């Protein structure tokens, strides 16, 4: 019984020593004045485009226009015209200003200068088909128009521009592990 009493006494002393040691440490930890603030923000990046090629033919001339059918995104467009060597196709800017379509000898594309807003269409580029032999079937000729679009980016000066050098890499919807982190 006496031994138990002694043990209790030792334990009480040890507990007191621990408490005092803890308090001594707490004094140091609580000694500095600090404060903090935080803030955060986010923005969704919307991408995606859909364009439709509109072609009307009158008097052996294709009237070409591109309609931006996207609901949200501006884009830049360009077209390239392919035809057989027996045909003589001459393109001309039929826009009101007359200088919105520009031909590049380097790559053979016709570039539409202004950006095309959602729901808007380019002005007309005419492709006149000439040099036709007398027996040419005017209801069946092969002049193919290829259209491309690219999203609006900005240059270092802050001006909107088109980056036609972007090489798109295909992707697959994997949804696999590793894409996300909680």
């Amino acid at each position, binding site marked *: 019984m006496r031994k138990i009493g002694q043990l209790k006494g030792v334990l009480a002393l040890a507990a007191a020593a621990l408490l005092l040691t803890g308090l001594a440490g707490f004094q140091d930890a609580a000694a500095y*004045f600090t404060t903090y603030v*935080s803030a*955060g923000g986010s923005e969704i990046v919307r*991408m995606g485009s*859909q364009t439709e090629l509109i072609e009307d033919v009158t008097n052996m001339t294709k009237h070409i226009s591109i309609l931006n059918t996207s609901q949200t995104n501006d884009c830049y467009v360009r077209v390239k015209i392919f035809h057989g060597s027996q045909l003589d196709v001459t393109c001309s800017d039929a826009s009101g200003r007359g200088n919105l379509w520009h031909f590049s000898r380097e790559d053979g594309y016709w570039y539409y200068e202004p950006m095309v807003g959602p729901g808007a269409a380019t002005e007309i580029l005419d492709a006149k088909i000439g040099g036709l032999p007398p027996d040419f079937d005017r209801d069946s000729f092969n002049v193919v128009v290829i259209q491309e*679009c690219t999203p609006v*980016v900005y240059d270092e000066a802050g001006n909107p521009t088109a980056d036609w050098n972007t090489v798109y890499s295909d992707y697959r919807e994997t949804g696999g592990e590793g894409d996300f*982190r909680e």
Partner: protein
Amino acid sequence: MRKKITWGMLALAVALLLGSTIGSTRAALTYYSENYVAEITVSQIGVSLLENGEVVSSRDYDENEWKVSTNQEGGSGSGALLKDLLKEGEKLAFNKRYEERLTVKNSGTIDTYVRVRVYRYWTRDGRKLTTLSPDLIDLNFANEDKWVKNPEQTAECTELFYKGILPSGQETEAFVDGVRIDGAVASEAAIETNGNVVTTTYKYDGVEFHVDVEVDAVQTHNAQEAIKSAWGVDASGLGIL
């Protein structure tokens, strides 16, 4: 006899411990008493984060309580950034440099040292996206002569220390002055042609970029130890004292 020695040693140990604690307490009391008399407002530390000149979040100790205010409705403890990044009807454009001037103001009554942590990351549907590089969220870190970068930063978190003391009432130079989303985010796309309609679907359409900022301030008194205790870094080694 042995028991007596044991009890004697234990009593001596407790007496020594008590003595040392009282000594510390007395020293601390003296230490604080002197400062308290000299600077009645010693405890009024405060800090504010500003975005383009407007306070978005502040936390100041005043009249024995913490006063927290933010630009968010609903009493959130955290402020809102990027609210005015785009004008009404404006769409986010790639590679365009948007003004995002972030500064810190000492809104307390004592001088402080200041640290900021800037986080940038991508999410989709509320989940963090790890396949898009945080570097595509191009924050322009400014005034690098005044803001010292922690060399051990990660791609997601940049830690900056303001060099020197930020006096009460003063505002720092901007640590960030612009943000730009790199057009490379649109480099993966599937292009589908259906008749005369061409549809381009981008892999990262609908992702969300985030910029989060944490600002910490600490007293200048006993700065080396205070900074070590609060931030865990060697202030002298970083050259911020």
